[in-house]
């Protein structure tokens, strides 16, 4: 059925695709650190050769009841439920920044437990629902 030319093209394509997939896989694997948009507090704790005072992003959840606002700075704790990181930030925060929600902070690590942010991004989760429903859920939880 298949002529020789067609067979040749099929084998060429499959070889091309296989080698490309392997190449892309290794490229992405070696670039993982750069592809990650932010590091979690656990990444920071475990990573030995982390460079302090270099610009980086950390992300996770804002720990419940951890936001502490005084006239100079907003202090809060980013947690990934294994490790925690204290963050200090002065400036405006996005509307969606609140306790128990995702956050990404951009700034400098002072030491492994303290981070000075110069920019805060809110990370939205994948849930969409109307406000009434949220109130009902809140009531039920309480």
């Amino acid at each position, binding site marked *: 059925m298949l002529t020789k030319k067609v067979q040749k093209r099929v084998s060429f394509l499959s070889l091309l695709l296989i080698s490309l997939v392997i190449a892309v896989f290794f490229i992405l694997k070696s670039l993982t650190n750069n592809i990650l948009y932010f590091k979690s507090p656990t990444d920071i704790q475990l990573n030995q050769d982390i460079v302090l005072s270099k610009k980086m992003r950390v992300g996770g959840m804002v720990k419940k009841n951890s936001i502490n606002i005084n006239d100079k700075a907003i202090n809060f704790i980013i947690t990934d439920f294994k490790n925690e990181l204290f963050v200090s930030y002065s400036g405006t925060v996005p509307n969606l920044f609140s306790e128990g929600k995702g956050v990404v902070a951009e700034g400098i690590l002072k030491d492994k437990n303290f981070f000075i942010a110069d920019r805060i*991004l809110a990370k939205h989760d994948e849930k*969409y629902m*109307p406000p009434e429903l*949220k109130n009902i859920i809140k009531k039920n939880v309480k």
Partner: protein
Amino acid sequence: MFDLINPSKIFYWIEKLINFINSIFFIILIIAMTFALVLSPPDYLQGDSVRIMYVHVPSAWIGLLSFTCLAFLSILSFIFKIKNLNLITKSIAPIGLMFTCLAVLTGSLWGQPTWGTWWAWDARITSMVILALFYVLFILAHKLIEDEYKANKISSLIAIIGAINIPIIKYSVDWWNTLHQPSSINVYGDSYVHSSMLLPLMLMLFVLLLYCALIFLMKYKTEIIRIKKKNIKRL
């Protein structure tokens, strides 16, 4: 295959389809828009900016879907050298590029009020930009290469190589930490969009798919006319 390319027959069907889509398109568009902009509730967190999602998510899906079709048809056309497939892929590309750009733009508009930034080089957004670049390469290959045989060959290779990007886009939010949220709607699993928001989303998807079909058919018609004209010139 020659029967399909038979101009009188395919013209008749294309015309009929275009007329049919034209007749229902605006009615469905108005219905979908009312659901998306008026009847659906605001989100508990984002407020009214959730409405951007009704354009953003379908456009991103359509951008991915068109490239998947493009790559699949390109593989077939590369192996079997069917000319008609090249006309089809050539007609899919512009509409896919448009929707990919629309997804990136609306995402940027949504990012400002929710994330607090217009742009982030995270894996999902970057891979989406790469998808748009592959569309541009595909279209440019057809525009710049004069020899038609060569242009078809190179453009289908571009589409096949770009196909590797598709699973990367899909799983980028699961493989790496991204600012972009993971997918809200899963075919095999839980969806996190409330039904009152799912309905306008699906309506908008349907409308935009109709729009795609309309533009595709019109472009396909022009491509066929171009081929016919060339043949006349040769004679």
